[in-house]
């Protein structure tokens, strides 16, 4: 019964089993310790002033980004007139934090689809580049945790926020990213990536900045509260238990059909072979009694 956990995934928790309580306590202790060790030394380095940060960012930008985006982030066109790297004037710090923070930038190769990959820069370096790009023109800033967290709300407010977020998610996001946030195909080899396990901050930044081909959902389009609600719904989907069992990738009927044929029909035909197979024979004769 150790791994039985009564409660998982509900937003409004009404009852918890005694084991769950213990586990939460244990987890809490572990987390606090872990967070402390993770964050305490970092504080020492974040004292650089804004101008120093911009300067540091500019240097990093010139080395790492300017080949495609130009020395002043004005964008570069190829001889054919294609965009090598778009202009970064006015994209804001949010775009940089998203693109560099998720490892998308610098790109491995030019193209419309930029996959997530291991991050190349430290948090400080990313912050510096973000500060530099933000200095090129006004654009969305990196959101604060309070922008996308529903922690401070009452249980009823949270529930309402998640329900509203669900409707906004199903209206604006599922078309490309699929109903479970598992991603989907786009024209000419492009795809909308899986977003179910993306950190809330990056989801928020992606909405603000419209990475690559994604349309933007600026604050005039989707208000900050609505963005927060979408993120809360997405989080609730992720935290939900898999009520019906393994999700098979959350890709819908194609995966289900594959399982029906391979697992279902495969096993049943296997059983049929066993049922009709002849059992072991012996060379001995039956002694009639």
């Amino acid at each position, binding site marked *: 019964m150790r791994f039985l956990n009564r409660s998982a995934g509900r937003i409004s928790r009404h009852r918890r089993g005694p084991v769950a309580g213990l586990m939460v306590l244990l987890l809490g202790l572990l987390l606090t310790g872990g967070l402390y060790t993770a964050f305490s030394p970092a504080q020492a380095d974040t004292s650089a002033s804004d101008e120093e940060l911009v300067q540091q960012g500019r240097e990093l930008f010139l080395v790492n980004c300017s080949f495609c985006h130009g020395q002043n982030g004005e964008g570069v066109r190829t001889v054919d007139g294609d965009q090598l790297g778009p202009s970064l004037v006015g994209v804001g710090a949010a775009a940089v934090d998203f693109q560099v923070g998720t490892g998308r930038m610098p790109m491995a190769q030019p193209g419309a689809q930029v996959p997530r990959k291991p991050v190349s820069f430290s948090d400080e370096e990313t912050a510096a580049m973000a500060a530099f790009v933000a200095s090129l023109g006004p654009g969305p800033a990196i959101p604060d945790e309070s922008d996308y967290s529903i922690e401070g709300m009452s249980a009823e407010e949270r529930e309402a926020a998640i329900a509203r977020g669900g409707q906004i998610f199903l209206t604006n996001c599922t078309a*490309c990213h699929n109903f479970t946030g598992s991603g989907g195909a786009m*024209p000419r080899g492009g795809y909308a990536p899986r977003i179910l396990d993306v950190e809330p901050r990056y989801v928020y930044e992606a909405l603000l900045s*419209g990475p690559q081909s994604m349309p933007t*959902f600026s604050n005039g*389009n989707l208000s900050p509260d609505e963005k927060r609600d979408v993120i809360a719904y997405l989080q609730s989907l992720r935290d939900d238990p898999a009520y019906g069992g393994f999700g098979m990738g959350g890709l819908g009927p194609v995966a289900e059909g594959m399982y029906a044929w391979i697992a279902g029909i495969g096993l049943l035909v296997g059983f049929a072979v066993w049922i009709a197979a002849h059992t072991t024979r*012996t060379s001995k004769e039956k002694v009639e009694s």
Partner: protein
Amino acid sequence: MTTHEGDNLPEKQPTSGELEAADPIADPGLPAHTWRPTDVDPKAEKRAERQIATLFGLSAVCTVLFVVSYFTLEIGEVTTTIGGLGASTLALGLTLGGALLLIGIGIIQWARKLMADHEIVEMRHPARSSDEDREAAVADLTTGLEESGIARRPLVRNSLLGAVGVLALPVPLVLLRDLGPLPKDALFHTIWEQGMRVVRDVVGTPIRPSDMQIGDLINAEPAAIFETDEEGEPLVEGVDLQVAKSKGAVILVRMGPDEITPGKGREDWGVDGILCYSKICTHVGCPISLYERTTHHVLCPCHQSTFDLADSARVVFGPAARPLPQLPLMVDSEGYLVAQRDFNEPVGPSFWERG
């Protein structure tokens, strides 16, 4: 019907004569029966018996566990989980499956190991009836028909046929008439009208051009579906609301004015690079909003028709035959986006009367 045991086979029947004569190898007949260990060894027999009884016993254990899971694992408000999966469904499924599978496997083991397994032979008979029966049936039928006089009384026969025919054709059609109203011109117009605001879906708030940045996509609806009367009751609800949404849903996109190739006569249908298109695919009617900001293409997730929104929603790929209808936009006195008028063509999939 006779059944023959073992290799006591009948002689080959010379029905397909000449071919049989050319057979290179004669039928050796059924091979001699061989025995199973459980037939000849009482110990093996006992062992199999115990094995099968164990399977049935384990099945009963599974059933008990099924009942226990049913009552102990909670669902609904507080769901019990096992390793992140819903515990109730998982446990009920596995215990029920176990109980059933063990019974099935047990029965089949019984058949395989303990039931007599002498193959027996049954003779076939042709599917057709005997000539005698056929003749008798035909004779009876003829007698019956003659006694009815159906051949001799064409007036009775034909008037009956006529009456049944008259009954059969229109009556079901008449009875089914009230299945639905006639289409009339319902498919030719939507709830959109001159001056109706374009509002955000879900929340129903109106949109100023300045709310949208270049690259923005707004999934929008006609304002009418969010309107309420003095008491807060919605003006459009139920079926009307669903119909209004299913034809009135639109997407708003904003792009650089220099990126747009305005269609003929559509020069003033946009506002500052903001264009509005029907969200309903012209192929079979899926709502589409899979928009690529950089190419201005929008893709249908059902059958992958792709439309270029910068070029009057021209079809660039896929099975759709027609561009998405465009809703002409303007700004009202308060600065909000409104429709100039309804769509100038039916939205959604093609139909015969569309023209």
